[in-house]
């Protein structure tokens, strides 16, 4: 009797790529593997990493959330204003509430309004980004004079928070019922509905989660910088999508893992950091990023064959 052919775990190729990249860099520049560089990379990756976890779940339901960066900005500004005035705990709650509310709006447009996610969140991106600028009096900085959120931004804390979010995400997607529902809806929404799952409720929850995580990322960002301005995180949504895609999650939905996204975030962060360590001429950075995304997707395609 022939042995059953073992399927290659989906994250293996990208994981190997990340390992190869890190090894090459560590050999070329010893300082790559130092604790201080790890801390640098951790701080660099934290905010994008946190929103990528939410993005993974959204994309697995065959949706997308183009508004996360704007949600992050608005939440950070709303919470930041309160924190700057001395109400730290209240400010954090306000930020998270803003993120959840924006997520609720997205979810409503998508479930009750039956809008395609790409359009609903694109429209919200315009509205919330303009809203964030107008809210902050035309884009003024929120400055936390006494570094009130430094406890979130010091040392390895940002990395730690991001890793905890990833761990929670990985656990939830595998072992919590709602997590399995996410895969079911992404795979075949009708079948899921017939099986008794309520796609509307699950999707709503996923977009609210995405908004909440965006707000958390905003608080971490303010912890790192002690300041926030409406344009500080423009483009983070594309970086998150790139990380999810590089990590092997299909844009079509139904499959993919949070662990894959972690690898994807790792690859982008290592590329950014490595480019500076080896002194790569900056005119090549964008082209390299584009090539990296393409390569990752091609490798994933080959794996499927």
């Amino acid at each position, binding site marked *: 009797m022939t042995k059953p052919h073992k399927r290659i775990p989906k994250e293996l190729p990208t994981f190997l790529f990340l390992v190869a990249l890190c090894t090459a860099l560590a050999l070329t520049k010893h*300082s790559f593997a*130092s604790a201080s560089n790890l801390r640098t990379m951790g701080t660099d990756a934290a905010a994008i990493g946190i929103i990528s976890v939410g993005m993974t779940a959204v994309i697995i339901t065959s949706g997308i959330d183009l508004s996360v960066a704007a949600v992050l900005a608005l939440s950070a500004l709303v919470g930041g204003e309160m924190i700057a005035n001395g109400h730290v705990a209240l400010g954090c709650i306000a930020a998270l509430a803003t993120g959840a509310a924006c997520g609720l709006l997205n979810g409503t447009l998508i479930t009750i309004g039956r809008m395609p996610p790409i359009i609903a969140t694109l429209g919200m991106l315009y509205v919330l980004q303009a809203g964030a600028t107008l809210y902050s009096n*035309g884009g003024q*900085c929120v400055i936390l004079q006494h570094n009130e959120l430094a406890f979130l931004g010091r040392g390895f804390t940002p990395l730690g928070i991001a890793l905890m979010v990833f761990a929670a995400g990985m656990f939830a997607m595998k072992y919590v019922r709602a997590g399995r529902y996410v895969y079911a809806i992404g795979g075949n929404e009708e079948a899921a509905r017939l099986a008794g799952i309520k796609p509307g409720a699950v999707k709503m929850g996923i977009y609210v989660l995405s908004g909440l995580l965006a707000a958390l990322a905003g608080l971490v960002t303010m912890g*790192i*910088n002690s300041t926030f301005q409406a344009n500080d995180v423009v483009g983070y949504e594309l970086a998150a999508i790139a990380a999810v895609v590089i990590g092997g999650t299909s844009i079509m939905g139904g499959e993919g893992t949070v662990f894959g996204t972690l690898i994807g975030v790792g690859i982008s962060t290592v590329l950014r950091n490595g480019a500076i360590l080896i*002194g790569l001429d900056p005119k090549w950075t964008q082209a390299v990023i584009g090539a990296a995304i393409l390569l990752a997707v091609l490798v994933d395609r080959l794996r499927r064959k």
Partner: protein
Amino acid sequence: MMSRRLAIVCAVLLALAIALAGCGKSAEKSASAPKGKRTIVFVFKLVGIPYSNACERGAQQAAKDLGVNVEFTGPAKGGDVAGQIRIIENQISRGVDAIVISPNDPNSVKPVIEKAMKRGIKVFTWDSDAPDTKRIFYVAAADDVGIGTDIVDKLAKDCGGKGKIGVMSGGQGALNLNLHVDGVMKGLKKYPGMSLAKPIIYNNDQPQQAQSGVAGLLQANPDLVGIACVNSPGPPGAARALVAAGKSGKVKIWGLSMPSENKQYLKDGTVNGLILWDPAKLTWVTAKLVNDYLDGKQPVDGMDVKDVGKLKVGKNGVVIMPGVVITKDNVDQFNF
């Protein structure tokens, strides 16, 4: 299907043509700007950042002090060449008295400036120039290239003229930043004992990239002695990287940035100093000079403006107002 759509489209266009004929005359009679009042419009590179807001404050103050209408606008996105041209064309349509531009790209505003001047609208530049155009004069607080050299001079002094320095800019596509970087490179040549740590960090106006970029540079160049920053997020980002690496004070930072964003770092010595100017004052002075020009008065070399200082008027209509060097000793007196 196609014929029905075609019919609808034609009907709508017909309705529009009628509206055009009817409304055309009446709208043109209405005032383009508040009746009788002179209107000066500042079109900046973008709106929605602290620097542009400071400029706008200067414009608003000028409106009060000069008794004319002074407006401030610009595209919502950074680097939006097309958006800025559209906005300038709108001002031409309005028939304002003067347009003052800080162009995202000096070449691209050449045709609109010509068009405006042909219509009798006076065009000037401020903050960033479009030297190869018909603009009447340009007001700035520094020469785009010269300010880069000034930053290096300050840095060299603090570093004893020796050692490796890093350079941080914003976006690779930003012309004025590239000119500042050119100035930094020129300045470096004056100090044979100093060298450049590659690569030049581009922070794309994002604080995180500024911090991570400098952190990476420090990692690769432990012997770094200084960092020259040419855009606002630079010095605070570099400062954060130094603090995290425990190198605050050991690596010198000089840059172009707003004092309000660097207060804490200037005071604790992480940032050594900033070279800038008051954007509100710069805009105010420009508004005054433009208003005077519309009254028939040219800017004169050496003229003294209250609260600002003496203006230098050079060739090709370049007017320079004094800038400021900001250190921990005077940071508290600035409100921008």
